[in-house]
């Protein structure tokens, strides 16, 4: 691993779809072990940013560095092998496999089993033990043999996070992990994410401010494809540019909804 002090760096990152530029020169440097929440009004490009970092799309220009190593334009699986994992806003599971199999699939590569067809899964004690440990940590051990498609919504969200962290990546991107969850579920879920990501660098896209303060040490504000503020929560809250951007968007949303702000 290189000696870079930053786990993740975005340098003048740009992405256009056709003529519209969604990400316009984003700059961000995340230190090792930092927990960052990315917030911003709808359409600011938060999900696009995650898609660029995780390799789903290639950026139009600019650089992305993971532990000092350039990863922009690489394939998702190459980026994952270098130690970056992401979750999805809509649960993205292996629906016809059991909960146990879902997690085990997610850690096979990192444990070095790759494309082996000369070893039995049942004999991979380390992978099976690790899977069971993770299931206990995620409190999914009672649902071990249930097919992923038969899980409740909240359980599916937990499994989504489980698949993301299983490979042991040290940079984790979570795309709206609590989307669609009830208040009480969210609270438990936040604690679970905290437990599961101890010591890792964490980036979260989130709308729920409760979640933002629960998970993040620092907040990055993305507006129209640019990071306009990146600091500890109190400093971000006091930032006049953030207030302007947020107030503006709140007013706009209120007008769309037809109710006075």
């Amino acid at each position, binding site marked *: 691993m290189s000696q870079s002090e930053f786990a993740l760096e975005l340098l003048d990152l740009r992405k256009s779809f056709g003529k519209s530029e969604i990400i316009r020169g984003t700059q961000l440097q995340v230190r090792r072990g930092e927990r960052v929440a990315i917030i911003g009004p709808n359409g600011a490009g938060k999900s696009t940013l995650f898609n660029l970092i*995780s*390799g789903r799309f290639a950026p139009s220009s600019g650089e992305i560095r993971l532990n000092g190593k350039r990863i922009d334009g690489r*394939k*998702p*699986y190459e980026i*994952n*092998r270098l130690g970056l*994992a*992401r979750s*999805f806003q809509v649960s*993205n*599971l*292996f*629906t*016809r*496999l*059991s909960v*146990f*199999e879902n997690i*085990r*699939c*997610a850690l*096979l*590569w*990192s444990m070095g*089993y*790759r*494309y*082996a*067809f*000369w*070893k*039995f*899964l*049942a004999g*991979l*004690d380390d992978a*099976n*033990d690790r899977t*069971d*440990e993770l299931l*206990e940590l995620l409190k999914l*051990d*009672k649902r*071990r*043999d249930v097919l992923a498609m038969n899980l409740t919504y909240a359980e599916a969200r937990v499994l989504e996070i489980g*698949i993301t962290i*299983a*490979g042991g990546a040290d940079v984790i991107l979570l795309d709206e992990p609590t989307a669609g969850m009830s208040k009480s579920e969210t609270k438990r879920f936040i604690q679970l994410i905290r437990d599961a990501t101890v010591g890792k660098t964490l980036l979260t896209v989130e709308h729920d401010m409760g979640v933002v303060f629960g998970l993040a040490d620092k907040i990055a504000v993305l507006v129209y494809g640019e990071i306009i503020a990146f600091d500890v929560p109190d400093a971000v809250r006091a930032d006049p540019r953030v207030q302007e951007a947020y107030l503006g968007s709140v007013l706009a949303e209120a007008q769309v909804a037809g109710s006075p702000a």
Partner: protein
Amino acid sequence: MSVTRTPHAGPNFHFKPYNVGRWLIWGFFALALLVAPVIWTSGLAQTMLTQIGIAIIACLAYNILLGQGGMLSFGHSAYSGLGSFLAIHSLNLASSGSWNIPVSLVPLTGGLAGLGFAILLGYVSTKKAGTPFAMITLGIGELIWSMSLMLPEFSGGEGGVSGNRVFGKAVMGITFGPQIQVYYLVAVYCFICTALMFALTRTPLGRMLNAVRDNPERVEFIGYDTHSVRYMAFMLSGLFSGIAGGLAALNFEMVTAEVVGAARSGSYLLFTFLGGATFFFGPILGAILMVVALVLFSELTKAWLLYLGLIFLFMVMYAPGGLASLIMMNLRVAAFGKLRRLWASYLALAGTALTMLAGGGALVEMIYHTQLNEALGPELQFIGVTLNSEGIDAWFGSSFLLLVGIGLFEVARRQFRLEWDETQEEIEKEIKRRELL
């Protein structure tokens, strides 16, 4: 999962019970292969059993793609067929004395050919999944088919390539002359290949192949290259397909260009699906069905392809998991002791379906008869009844039977649907209750 483990066992303690059930099933499979020709001793039966053994390997190999990898191939006969050609050429080299290879290993040259061509052609085929994959395999299948006709030195042109599997000295009295000896060779290959393909489903590659089937996008984000997973599965499928092709060459001592044809590819797809792609043993049922249909049905009636098409249609509509899923669903009902309740409905379904079938079948047979067999006079035999295809009675009677059958069947089906759903609901409840205990 064969390994059950108590959740609180320490990380270094592994309780792996001897899986009695699995040994029983494999023992039964071996026994079935062993005694089948003792039970069915006629010449026809032996030919069919040999073909079934070969078809089992071919359908299981095809299902590595279809059922386990979610890859719909329209050109898989390319690999079994090229295996057949390479095997028959190897056989001829061996019988002319220029290559010293025992007859029993000739099918392996077919396997190597299948593997080799899968390495060559699979790379492009597996670049994409879904519809592009299907289209590419279709294209490559057509390519191989037309190439085989363009290279008569290789394919023997219209007449094909023939060979002779009986040459040299007999090893321990085995010459592979009699059909029964070929059958047992096929049975050994069938057992080993089936075991190997089952083993594949229990390995990291096999499981990742399921993951690629379910959600290729997510696989890319957990470190796996979906193309590599598909490509490796494709190669293994090609290997086993080639072995099946090699065995077929040995069995028929004759290989014509139709072994690489689209019809062959189509029948792999059709029968693997009918047998059931979602369970490992489904294609085995499909293979049995394939040989029975191709050999027996085609003797029974000229309209057999029509009936087969109808069966396929109904299977796709009502039981997309094939025969295997029907069996497994009913086993589940039986395991919860609720099968007894469905018997009456099943009887009603069967009775009304037979009525429908008798009416429909009579109509179809009469149409075929008037079109194809007019020279034989207006009368034909249908399940023991003499029908006059020129009289109005037969047409009216069969139509009436068909319509009544359809009506009653629909009533029976609705009743069955209700009872079935009720049973499933009760089973779900029972499972929930057991989970809470």
